[in-house]
């Protein structure tokens, strides 16, 4: 089983899973949640044979032990197994801003500090949070 951002998981889904009604419905729901400012994740799974796993595990162990470019190697091996996934659902978590965030940001802007927000969230979620943090007004 694995979780991740919608774009990342979508790329790794099996053809069959991507065509299904469930995928479309999930997409719809997740977009709706994102607009409300919730943080969304996709969940997907894949059933592995013992043999396939053993083969992959060997490669993974090698990658983890490699002396050079370890992160890159591990990511490569992970790519091998994270394919043809089946979508099983999604999550949406409310992550409320802490106290006085908007006030602090307003003050920083007034003082002449440039603000860059860097987030891994979807654009809808980010815009929503930007609004509640007083970064964007519209």
């Amino acid at each position, binding site marked *: 089983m694995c979780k991740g951002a919608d774009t990342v998981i979508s790329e790794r889904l099996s053809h069959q899973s991507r065509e299904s009604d469930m995928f479309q419905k999930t997409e719809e729901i997740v977009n709706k949640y994102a607009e409300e400012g919730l943080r969304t994740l996709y969940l997907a799974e894949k059933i592995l044979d013992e043999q396939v796993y053993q083969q992959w595990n060997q490669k993974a162990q090698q990658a983890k032990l490699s002396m050079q470019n370890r992160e890159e190697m591990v990511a490569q091996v992970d790519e091998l197994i994270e394919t043809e996934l089946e979508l099983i659902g999604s999550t949406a978590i409310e992550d409320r801003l802490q106290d006085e965030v908007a006030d602090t940001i307003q003050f920083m802007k007034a003082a*002449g500090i440039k603000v860059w927000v860097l987030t891994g969230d979807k654009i809808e979620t980010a815009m929503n949070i930007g609004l509640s943090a007083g970064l964007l007004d519209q």
Partner: protein
Amino acid sequence: MKTEVELNLTQGQLKRKQAIVVAGASLVQIDEHEEIRECFLQASDNVDVVLACRVSPKQKADIVNLIKKRFPSKTTLSIGDGANDVSMILQAHVGVGISGKEGQQAARSADYAIGQFKYLKTLLFFHGREAYRRNSLLIVYNFYKNFLYVVTQFYFGFYSTFSGQPLYEQNMYQLYNITMTSLPIMWFAVFDFEHERDEQRAPQPTQPHALYFLRAPSLYRIGLNNECFSYFIFIQWITKALAHSLLIFFAVFFCLCQNETS
């Protein structure tokens, strides 16, 4: 290629207040082409807020790097609470980590760890601003005191045929740096505040138009414009040291001279 890079300019209420919203995928494109990168950075310089979504931890660090390279005179600060923010916190000039629900990684790798986002205000506008002002003063003061100290010795050379005879008594010479560097500056660093932090901390009764660090954002300007530590300030202090050294040396020297002859 250029059309693929889409910058959505969302118009705010005031015309001057615009924001750029950019997605991670576009950022990759922006980074690849120098023209577009330059164009993007110029645009970002003209707006108050840039919102980048769908960026990976590595991209966060890359963005900080990009700004550092393009605007070398600017200071960058990264603040974050998650493990995803660690690389950008490390990359920025000042890294601030919020320790909390998302774990300790961000706080552990940061220069400053705070408990909540709102404490950033106190950190920047009170401690940061005052530390900047006092540190600047400490540096120029150090130049001032050593200049004063050595130049008088140099003047004395003219009257001692540069024989190397010390002007000062040995113990005084040694103690000068200890007493003049550590004691006044320690007092200064602990007790000197240009303004009060906020109304609650102000001594009673408060003046009607008093400025408070956490109320008046304009007080932060000195740091942004580097007003406390510029060539002008430095030369001012050196000139002061020169004037004071002349005054001290000749006042003392001629007073003593006359005493001797009479």
